[in-house]
């Protein structure tokens, strides 16, 4: 059986599984649509949160960035896991106690202001749509490869499937489908990593293999990789090349963005008790860590295998012959990826060989970083079923997160904006219809911008984290920990954080992410060495300061709000969630 048919069978089978579960658990009432009736066990919830959380950025893109950036990409690893500590300690239990369905509802009630709720809706939509753009980039890469079409066609097909999928189920459908998706994606991620770690080091655990000896040289893997890179003129893998300032701010931004992203926070509304909300964050991180501890090994080993493919006689020997790339069946993957337009080679110097070197003028191979994880099993010549499984895993990651984000966007529009503000008498049916229309609009916008994305999938997603970090996290945290923050302070803080961060991002990535409208670039940023992906931490700082200063200059929050804050700090008396 050829690889294409095998891909179709494996991907098709997993899709049938998800759709079957979605139909079986189809949402009937609005409360089921948003919060699954609150009957979800912490471990189940943790697994679903992990699938919701680990998107195309984690699965498809992150190890590729690690492969090319080495140590500098550690910010992604620490940032996207460290945020769970903040969630578990500072947000999840209290928001669960508060007991409403959405993040803007909490902000609206705590700051006793419909304006605050609307500002939170805007922040949520901006962050989530940016996030969906990153997902669409990943969906495009995955679909273009496994259907063997160009990247844009893959993106259109993927967008259609995401839409169908998200519209079918609400949170309940999504909770149980996401458990299935987690299982598919973690198997798909770890199996090839185990194979490759065994091939290169003899150690079956990739996280340990990364720090052990490479069979080929008898030296540690990372020493071997640094040596290969040095031969070809590339920068060292293990040294720091980014500035310490930017790396620090980037990690902060990803961490607090993690804790401020609405589609993750709503997960903790669905557990039965406050005590469960605390453990749920821990279980989510257990399931996330299985992938995140493996990713550094995937990155380093993929880079080694890529170089070894193009230098079959070692990095000091001759590069691979062009005729081999065109006909050798072990190099089928190079030709397959060339069809997507995401891998390109050209024999510039006409020597019949493809040199892969650091010098841009002499280099004859360009590899999109987002293809590394999907191409990894092919590069290592693993069996066909492993390759098909990785395609299915990548799609599971992208689909589950896109669905969770679309749910957060649609509930913000239908529940907070329309029902909470414009038309409180809307019928349940009308609310569901509005939810579905907003999903369709969000997908259309994200697909259009996904054609010319502002960066690789994980970088676009990092921008979404910056926006969430600067706008929502400070408001949520202060809402719980600082009683003195009033309506005016919260609104001013959120607006200041959101606007400053968005302007900084748009100055570097183009206004509304339209290509060519930027005035600066991340290689030479406006302020010091702070890249647009790191600016969320500065935006958050501004948010905190503005909210604090404005609150202290204006009147104290009313007595009943101070009592509300007292009550969410204590687990006792948490009932089922209520709608407005």
């Amino acid at each position: 059986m050829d690889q294409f048919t095998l891909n179709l069978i494996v991907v098709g089978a997993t899709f049938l599984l998800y759709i079957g579960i979605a139909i079986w658990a189809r949402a009937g009432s609005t409360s089921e649509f948003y919060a699954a009736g609150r009957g979800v066990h912490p471990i189940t919830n943790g697994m679903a949160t992990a699938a919701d959380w680990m998107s195309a950025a984690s699965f498809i893109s992150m190890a590729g960035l690690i492969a090319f950036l080495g140590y500098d990409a550690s910010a992604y690893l620490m940032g996207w896991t460290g945020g769970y500590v903040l969630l578990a300690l500072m947000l999840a239990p209290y928001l669960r106690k508060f007991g409403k369905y959405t993040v803007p509802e909490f902000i609206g009630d705590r700051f006793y202001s419909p304006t605050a709720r609307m500002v939170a809706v805007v922040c949520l939509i901006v962050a989530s749509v940016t996030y969906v753009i990153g997902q669409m980039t990943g969906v495009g890469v995955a679909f273009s490869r496994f259907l063997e079409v160009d990247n844009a066609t893959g993106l259109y097909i993927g967008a259609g499937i995401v839409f169908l999928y998200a519209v079918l189920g609400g949170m309940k459908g999504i909770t149980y489908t996401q458990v299935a998706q987690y299982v598919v994606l973690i198997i798909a991620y770890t199996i090839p990593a185990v194979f490759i770690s065994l091939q290169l080091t003899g150690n079956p655990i990739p996280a340990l293999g990364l720090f052990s000896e490479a069979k080929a040289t008898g030296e540690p893997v990372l020493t071997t990789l640094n040596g290969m890179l040095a031969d070809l003129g590339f920068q060292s893998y293990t040294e720091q090349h980014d500035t310490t300032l930017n790396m620090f701010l980037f990690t902060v931004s990803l961490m607090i963005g993690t804790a401020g992203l609405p589609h993750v926070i709503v997960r903790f509304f669905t557990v039965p008790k406050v005590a469960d909300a605390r453990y749920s964050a821990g279980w989510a991180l257990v399931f996330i860590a299985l992938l995140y501890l493996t990713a550094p090994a995937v990155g380093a080993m993929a880079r080694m295998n890529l170089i070894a493919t193009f230098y079959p006689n070692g990095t000091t020997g001759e590069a691979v012959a062009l005729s081999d790339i065109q006909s050798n069946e072990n190099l089928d993957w190079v030709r397959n990826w060339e069809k997507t337009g995401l891998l390109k080679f050209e024999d510039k110097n006409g020597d019949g060989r493809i040199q892969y070197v650091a010098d841009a003028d002499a280099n004859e191979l360009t590899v999109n970083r987002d293809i590394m994880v999907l191409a990894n099993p092919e590069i290592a010549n693993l069996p066909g079923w492993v390759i098909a499984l990785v395609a299915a895993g990548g799609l599971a990651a992208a689909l589950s997160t896109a669905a969770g984000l679309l749910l957060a966007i649609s509930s913000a529009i239908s529940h907070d904006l329309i029902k909470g503000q414009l038309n409180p008498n809307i019928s349940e049916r009308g609310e569901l219809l509005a939810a579905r229309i907003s999903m369709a609009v969000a997908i259309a916008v994200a697909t259009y911008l996904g054609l010319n994305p502002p960066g690789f999938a994980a970088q676009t997603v990092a921008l979404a984290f910056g926006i969430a970090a600067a706008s929502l996290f400070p408001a949520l945290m202060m809402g719980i920990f600082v009683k003195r923050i009033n309506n005016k302070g919260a609104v001013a803080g959120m607006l200041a954080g959101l606007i400053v961060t968005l302007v900084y991002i748009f100055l570097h990535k183009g206004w509304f992410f339209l290509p060519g409208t930027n005035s600066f670039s991340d290689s030479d940023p406006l302020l010091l060495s702070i890249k647009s992906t790191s600016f969320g931490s500065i935006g958050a700082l501004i948010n905190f300061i503005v909210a604090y200063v404005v609150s202290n200059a204006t009147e104290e929050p009313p007595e009943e709000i101070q009592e509300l804050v007292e009550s969410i700090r204590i687990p006792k008396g948490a009932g089922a969630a209520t709608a407005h």
Partner: protein
Amino acid sequence: MADKSSSNAYWAANIRLIRLCLIIWALVSFGFGILLRPMLSGIAVGGTDLGFWFAQQGSILVFLVLIFFYAARMNKLDREYGVEE
């Protein structure tokens, strides 16, 4: 709600616990993983140094321990102050 002074003491104990956890959280990631890495460069770990290991492995493992430690301590605290569900 429980009486005011008891719930204030509960909250103060919670804040102390959060502070302790966040100090460790920052130390292993921003500390060992980034800012203090040059100071740890003498400790070799499989072809690189301890700072690299903390940045790509160790910090994640510590985060896990921290969350479960906090959850267990808080659930105990809930019972001590009689504020559990």
